């Protein structure tokens, strides 16, 4: 629409994953809802830090006013972000931190995410026993941040042992194959921590009629639904909103309008919704949204940061579309 005055560039390096798709939709919806954005220029594909550098430089060539970026790596795109700032472009990183000092950061706290969930899980296990540790993609920086949080919680519970550590690659099918072959070994476990590939794990437990153990996952629609409905399942969803993208766009617009935040970094703290206490159950009930794709996080908005409606984010349309 013609009313907006800014062009915002977006760079993202993982495509086809529910979480990232929600993030992009939140960016579009927020840009539309703000009324300040004339055009979004989105570079959204599967690539690495070098590819993201290329995208950022292309966005600089396209002369955008701000760039919102979900970094492939905190340090790897420093050069590009620096060039953008030099060209007078506002840079906001979402989801993960970046090392470039001139960039603003609004991010989910990944270390805290893992710590919160793991600590709850170990408490449920009574502070002892074997845990199945299902990580994300080997080598991804979000995964290594989460590993720090998990290890921190583990250190607090000396009697909890890791029965097996596997990388799901954040792929549903790999995770399912891994859990099935693990279950088939008959190794006893007392809990499962997953890095957000959660609903297939519960599916597998049900299908195999394996003993139900506490499961920690993310606030994906599918898993939240299972926490509400699957009999005998004890578990918790830790929020990791993809809507952080919308918050990133809001922050960029604020800065463009001259309202700089007090600090360069804004961390969005995760919450934990469990299905053990009444309070937790109520939160899960309220959060459940079967109309969403099971891979989408249910936290489709972030209070104080996003202003779009559910219809807008689900429609996934930006300005001028």
């Amino acid at each position, binding site marked *: 629409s013609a009313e907006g005055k800014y062009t915002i560039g977006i760079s993202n390096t993982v495509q*086809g994953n529910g979480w990232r798709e929600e993030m992009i*939709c939140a960016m579009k919806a927020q840009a539309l809802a703000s009324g300040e954005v004339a055009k979004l220029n989105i570079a959204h594909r599967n690539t690495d830090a070098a590819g993201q550098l290329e995208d950022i430089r292309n966005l600089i060539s396209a002369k955008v006013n701000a760039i919102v970026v979900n970094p492939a790596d905190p340090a790897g795109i420093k050069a590009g972000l620096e060039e953008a700032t030099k060209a007078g472009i506002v840079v906001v990183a979402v989801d993960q931190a970046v090392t470039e000092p001139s960039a603003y950061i609004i991010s989910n706290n990944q270390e805290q995410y893992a710590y919160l969930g793991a600590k709850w899980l170990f408490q449920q296990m009574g502070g002892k026993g074997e845990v199945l540790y299902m990580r994300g993609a080997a080598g991804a920086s979000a995964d290594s941040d989460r590993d720090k949080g998990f290890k921190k919680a583990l250190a607090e519970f000396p009697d909890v042992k890791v029965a097996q550590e596997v990388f799901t690659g954040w792929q*549903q*099918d790999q995770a399912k194959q891994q859990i099935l072959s693990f279950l088939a*070994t008959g190794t006893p476990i007392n809990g499962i921590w997953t890095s957000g590939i959660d609903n297939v794990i519960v599916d597998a437990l049900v299908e195999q009629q394996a003993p139900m153990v506490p499961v920690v996952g993310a606030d994906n629609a599918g898993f939240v639904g299972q926490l509400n409905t699957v009999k005998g399942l004890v578990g918790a969803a830790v929020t990791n909103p993809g809507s952080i993208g919308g918050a990133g766009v809001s922050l960029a617009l604020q800065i463009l309008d001259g309202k700089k935040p007090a600090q360069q970094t804004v961390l969005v703290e995760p919450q934990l919704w469990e299905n053990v206490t009444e309070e937790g159950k109520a939160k899960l009930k309220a959060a459940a949204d079967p109309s969403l794709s099971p*891979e989408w996080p249910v936290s489709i908005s972030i209070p104080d940061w996003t202003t779009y409606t559910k219809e807008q984010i689900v429609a*996934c349309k930006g300005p001028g579309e």
Partner: protein
Amino acid sequence: MTNSATMPQPVSLGRRLKRFMADRPLIPLIILLVILVLILQVLRPGIVNERWIANTAKFAIPLAILAGCQTMTMLTGGIDLSVGTVATMSAFIMATQIVNQDPTVAFILAMLPAVLIGLVNGVGVGVFRVHPLIMTLGTSLIGTGFLQVYQRTVIASGAKIPDFLNWLGTGLTYGFPNALFLFVPVAVLIVFTLNRTGFGRLLYAVGDNERAARLSGVRYWQVITALYVISSLLAGITGLLYIGLIKAPSLSLAEPLVLPSVAAAVIGGTSIFGGRGGYMGTIVGALILTVLTTLLTILHMPEGGRRILFGFIVLFVTAAYLRIIEDR
């Protein structure tokens, strides 16, 4: 003028054994599979039970069907890298269309992109003579793009896994995975096609010597177009089966199966240069890969080490197999 002809040497037992296996290339493959299972059993006593076998079969079946696509295309000197995308598309479309549509309509809609991509692949390879690697890679990029666009239009309506696929993907009948109801007919059909039909003959002939086939009156483009459409259809069906197994429609659902499907066909003894191979070997190849994956999951090992081991084992298996069947 020279010494008299040398007497034929008595053939040693090792050589005889080797020749026996070389004439039946399936046997060494099966032996290898058994060895892997034994290793598994030694590492985790008790793992090899009914449940484990059913699970292994469940995961090997989608891989084996996709590897069937690779086997058939590789026989003609081609390859089909678009099977991952096609399977994903069919699965995703099925899961999202079933919400509002009649199952039959949803099924037809789900198979439509498979047919289209197969047709484009076939025409590109068969008529325009584009290298299959490039052609199928290109169509899989295009397919993924369309899937992304499509995905946004169905975010609001959500997805659902039809009960039937659920039953097919994960159900058991008398301890046997229901997926066998799909797989056994498909496998029989592929084996029969390759060995006992004119079409199968032509696949081998075209892959071995295209000019010879042409001079015998074979129209290359017809064979290739039909082949890639069939390959795509099989991939589409695999997608439906796989979504019943995984139950989470994602946009990269079947992508991780693509390289292993090529590996399974190669391990199974199909030549990537065309003209040689068969489907029975491929099935065993798929089983070997699946068991191998389990084996690596069970070994307590850092991810890096696991990948290294996987690579070496694939190489070792193929090399050993080649050695055995070498001088047939």
